[in-house]
């Protein structure tokens, strides 16, 4: 048996907005992602040139060497709009909060070997500045990127990186008993410790990079493609023998996040590469150049944690990234 609630049936006159219907090829029900993503950004007829970049229009496709006929091909496979984005992150955060409150209540991190705790201080905490650099880089992409598809997702990534920088900082605040001394020390390391300088140098070079798509490749594909597997997988595993398992739940957010964000990064790169050989050449060239830079930047870090195993670990990550890049249709 089924029950049937009688209602007045009113025929809608159209299923979706005109711009969405034109993109879908017909007036048919559209997803919330499509309705709130397509065509948000103005693409023509601007009134004034920006005083801060008078050679360009306010939004200008010429701000990258990548050329696309339709910038909406850079879709987000996660189909995030603001609502689904915040709900997804709040769920991940709920799990992270449980881990943090457990770690605080049970003082779980005190069980980690003292040697290894020192390593956590020196390899993990300065990364909050790396994340802040990634925040700025994605903010830059949101600012001068072209089309609402890529810039909207870049906005979410911008806030993600601030959130992750804050999670790393909270690990520090647990380790230092809520005094902030570990964070000050981490900043000193970021600024002056030889092991961190190649990475900071690379991050600062990214901060002044004019082409936002190259920045996307350098930050979100290549550097994250090294840092995340190295820190949250290799270092994490190396810590297991030293009681480091207690830290893992506190960085689980980052591991999950990396897996998720890679879908977006891969989707964007694939779509841009598919368009033309010229795009593929650019993307491959950027990937190669920044991969060399990343190997150089993370090696001292890997050595400080993994010692003799560092070269092998970095090579393995490089090879996995190479496979990933080839899967996206590029040359590694």
């Amino acid at each position: 048996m089924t029950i049937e609630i009688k209602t007045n049936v009113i025929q809608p006159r159209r299923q979706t907005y005109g711009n969405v219907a034109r993109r879908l090829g017909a007036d048919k029900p559209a997803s919330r992602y499509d309705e709130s993503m397509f065509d948000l950004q103005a693409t023509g007829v601007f009134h004034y040139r920006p005083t801060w970049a008078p050679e360009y229009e306010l939004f200008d496709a010429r701000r990258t060497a990548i050329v696309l006929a339709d910038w909406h091909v850079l879709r987000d496979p996660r189909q995030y709009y603001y609502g689904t984005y915040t709900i997804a992150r709040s769920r991940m955060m709920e799990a992270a909060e449980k881990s943090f409150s457990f770690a605080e209540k049970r003082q779980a991190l005190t069980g980690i070997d003292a040697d290894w705790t020192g390593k956590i201080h020196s390899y993990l905490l300065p990364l909050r500045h790396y994340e802040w650099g990634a925040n700025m880089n994605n903010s830059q992409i949101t600012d001068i990127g072209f089309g609402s598809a890529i810039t909207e997702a870049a906005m979410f990534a911008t806030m993600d990186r601030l959130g992750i920088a804050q999670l790393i900082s909270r690990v520090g605040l647990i380790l230092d008993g809520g005094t902030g001394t570990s964070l000050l020390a981490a900043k000193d390391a970021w600024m002056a410790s030889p092991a961190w300088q190649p990475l900071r140098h690379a991050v600062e070079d990214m901060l002044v990079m004019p082409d936002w798509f190259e920045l996307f490749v350098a930050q979100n594909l290549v550097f994250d493609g090294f840092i995340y597997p190295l820190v949250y997988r290799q270092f994490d595993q190396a810590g297991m023998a030293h009681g480091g398992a207690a830290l893992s739940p506190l960085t689980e957010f980052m591991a999950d996040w990396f897996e998720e964000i890679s879908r977006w990064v891969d989707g964007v790169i694939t779509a841009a590469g598919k368009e033309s050989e010229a795009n593929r050449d650019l993307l491959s060239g950027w990937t190669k150049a920044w991969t060399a830079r990343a190997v150089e930047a993370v090696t001292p870090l890997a050595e400080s944690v993994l010692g003799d195993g560092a070269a092998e670990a970095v090579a393995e990550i490089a090879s996995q990234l190479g496979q990933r890049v080839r899967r996206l249709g590029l040359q590694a």
Partner: protein
Amino acid sequence: MNAMQPPPKQKKLSLKERYAHLTRGLGWNTTYQPMDKVFPFADYEGIKIHDWDAWEDPFRLTMDAYWKYQAEKERKLYAVIESFAQNNGHLNITDARYVNALKLFLTGVSPLEYSAHRGYAHVGRHFVGAGPRIACQMQAIDELRHAQTQIHTMSHYNKFFDGLHDARHMHDRVWYLSVPKSFFEDACSAGPFEFLTAISFSFEYVLTNLLFVPFMSGAAFNGDMATVTFGFSAQSDEARHMTLGLEIIKFMLEQDEANVPIVQRWIDKWFWRGYRLLALVSMMMDYMLPKRIMSWAEAWEMYFEQAGDALFNDLSRYGIRKPKYFEVASKEKHRLSHEVWSTFYNYTQATAFHTWLPTEEEMTWLSGKYPDTFDRLYRPRFECWSEMEKKGNRYYNPTLPQLCVTCQIPMIFTEPDDPTTTCFRSAEYKGERYHFCSDGCKDIFCYEPEKYIQSWLPVHQIYQGNCGGAEMKDVLAWYHLNFGADNFDYTGSPDQKLWDEWQAQRSANAV
């Protein structure tokens, strides 16, 4: 550091210090690249900042809390939007004429939310201080939220009413929408400090109660549960944005005395720019809402004259005075909405919402709210047009209007001291003559002529043949305006026909 030692005995951080570690503590002074290359737009506006650390965070929100609160609000909002759609909530509004306010909102305001998102992303990248950068980033993503939730809220209305089907396209092309569009592009094309003065302070702090709030209150008064739920949901975001607006002004003023005249000039400019934009809201409040909240004049008195007095008294200790020409705005308050609605009535053939003449009952309300002007100056017009309509000779203005180069509104406003004489101002620049609706708009042009000579003026563009063709129908097609459905009077529109059918069906059910 040596982690082998137990952490030295240190005081636990206060909440404020902890927040500082989680935000501004993340930033660093770059050394491999010079700071002025990393932050290239910090100085060119002439604003002097000596100590970015003196920035007081206007609110303390870390991302964990942000995600949590915002997700909670989104869950509730989308539950209401879904229930509204499932139950055909549009049938419960006071009258289908109300939807025209939504058309104005979706085509005129929602695209501004998106522009604000990109504008704040720009400042959120380029301010030197990490503290204010984070505040701007949060506003950047909030503004994206507002653009997206407005589109989702109105999506149901779009299924049943005309004029909502192509908001972005229309915003970039339709003649009267160049008013809000040029306003926001003016702000976004300015430097980061001016952008914040324009949007965070003048727009969000000083004028938001006259822009955002009347639309949301209009929704509440007219049975539009979906839109008013959005309004409530955005309220706490707006409160954060307002505190940022006040904080940035105080920060600039406290950092250096030389900033005061620059900020004053921006306040003058953006007050006038914002006030002119509100002309569209004034007609919405007085003419478009079947159930009115309050009159434009009352809103202006409450939200600008009174609240503004208190604010500018407070800022006078920095040497800031009330915005230039505020008294002109007050002189105009008894005529603004009437002048604007009359103009749209004249050009109904080219608008993406419907127009109508006020009913006798509505004119009585207008007489009561505008005792000094309505019966003397505007009622006779409406009565004349009503007579013409009855004789089958509805008045249309066949000539395209001259536009003000700055605000891009047709030259419809009257002399500050004489509501029967149209106000014309002009200025010459590099051998060309430019026209303005007011001293306020002329001043703005004359300070930055190189900017405003770039204005994309819809009427000029039509005459130059850049808008689809020479005939009105060509231009309207280029606007994506559906002729005979989106435009003309409400009476006789498809909106009206369907609304009457739905109401008839409902009253038939009620037996």
